């Protein structure tokens, strides 16, 4: 059975608290934190972007899986904040793990679910025996406009899954998708910050797609919520994923491990990868996971996953929790400096 051969994750070491952001705009920080269920968010450094995060997460996955570049036949990177508009993130990752030149590579974009589309592509290529292993990456360093609701949650981070057929630590039993044309969130070409439809991002967008896809996935698998040990969904804030999981019949014990947004914010394409990595960090053989991604625009990808015995032999040190525990708080001025929100034009 094809599935996950290895996994990696990366969370930057800086964070800013919701109250600090709110204080700059004269807003009630406690109310924002409680309403979003986001108390702090990760902040990438001035020398970190989608490419550096993708490389670090992928190198961790390669090391854990005891793989070298010759084992990799494809790299697909999903993000909505690729540093280049034209020039692939994936080729730089390929070079940084010495996987060039005998592989195929491309960058994907589908808001926050570009990375899971990459997983499905790798599954197809592995299933068709075109490649031995494929790398799917989901990373973002997205920004919210200063003062916008997104500024309280838009953060940075991501993960990598290596998909293959040998030495699989978790089989992907099945995958399905639910896709419509729903304009809930977008960023036009050349625009620095995205725009969104406010409350329209909820019921007709996130909830409709995630819940429909989750139900479809369980129907195809012949399962119910109680058959799973964990659920992880996309998590644009700390409230939506809890409501979606509960609607699908899941309990706190099933969703709390993969729910990271309250502490690291919304890592967009990286969110489901990091949530899944946090689960894989502690999962035991036989555990079953339901993963449902969501990308605005809009669509959901669902995955029914079962952990195998092979995970017991994997070195799972340097966990997502380790990375989160090392994060240091920065103030808004440092955050603005790191995230390019200062206009230095007059000095140049």
């Amino acid at each position, binding site marked *: 059975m094809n599935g996950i051969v290895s996994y990696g994750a990366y969370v930057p070491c800086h964070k800013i608290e919701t109250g600090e952001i709110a204080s700059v705009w004269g807003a009630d920080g406690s109310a924002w934190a409680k309403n979003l269920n986001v108390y702090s968010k990760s902040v990438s450094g001035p020398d970190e972007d989608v490419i550096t995060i993708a490389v670090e997460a992928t190198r961790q996955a390669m090391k854990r899986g005891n793989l070298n570049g010759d084992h990799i036949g494809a790299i697909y990177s999903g993000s909505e904040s690729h540093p280049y508009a034209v020039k692939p993130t994936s080729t*730089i990752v390929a070079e940084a793990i010495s996987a060039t030149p005998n592989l195929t590579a491309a960058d994907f974009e589908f808001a926050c679910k570009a990375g899971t589309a990459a997983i499905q592509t790798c599954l197809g290529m592995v299933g068709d025996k075109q490649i031995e292993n494929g790398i799917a990456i989901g990373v973002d360093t997205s920004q919210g406009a200063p003062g916008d609701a997104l500024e309280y949650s838009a953060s940075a981070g991501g993960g990598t899954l290596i998909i293959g057929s040998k030495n699989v630590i978790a089989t992907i039993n099945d995958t399905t998708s639910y896709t419509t044309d729903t304009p809930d969130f977008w960023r036009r070409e050349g625009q620095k910050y995205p725009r969104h439809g406010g409350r329209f991002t909820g019921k007709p967008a996130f909830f409709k797609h995630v819940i429909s896809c989750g139900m479809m996935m369980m129907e195809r698998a012949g399962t119910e919520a109680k058959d799973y040990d964990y659920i992880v969904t996309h998590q644009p804030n700390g409230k939506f994923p809890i409501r979606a999981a509960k609607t699908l019949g899941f309990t706190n014990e099933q969703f709390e491990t993969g729910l990271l947004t309250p502490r690291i914010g919304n890592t967009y394409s990286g969110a489901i990868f990091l949530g899944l990595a946090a689960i894989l960090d502690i999962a035991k053989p036989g555990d079953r996971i339901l993963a449902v991604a969501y990308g605005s625009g809009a669509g959901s990808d669902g995955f029914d996953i079962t952990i195998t015995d092979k995970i017991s032999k994997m070195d799972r040190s340097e966990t997502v929790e380790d990375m989160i525990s090392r994060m240091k708080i920065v103030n808004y001025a440092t955050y603005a400096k790191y995230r390019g929100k200062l206009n230095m034009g007059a000095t140049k």
Partner: protein
Amino acid sequence: MSVPRFWRELDTRYNLIGSYCKITKTYHYPRRSFNPKAGRESIGSMKDYQFKGIGKIVNSTVVYQAQTGYEMFGPYCMAIVKLDEGPMMTTQIVDCDPNKVKPGMKVKSVFRKLGEDSESGILHYGTKFILSEDIEVEEDNENLPDIEV
């Protein structure tokens, strides 16, 4: 820096590829096709070697007047790092309080953005270093290793 010049050195910057001299059994970074200490014998005896990316701080300084392109880091730490295999390199130490970096501290390599040609130019990526978890501080700064220039 021209695009082809950076491109030619990608594996050196991304993956710490240097050289191993089979004659003197020494490691060199960046890559060399010739080892001056072994003379012409070393021609053809240098092979590529990927450094592990682990080393120690030899000495460091804190830069307050940032170089162009590094304004957003200021103040930041520049250090001479001695890799476990022997070669030394000048590099930036990131993700830490620059004033707390001391000789003897263990470091490990990370993949970071080094800079960019311009707002519309090519992005340069490569290796920087972070402090390792198990920090060892040598209080005695008198016995720093000799730096070969």
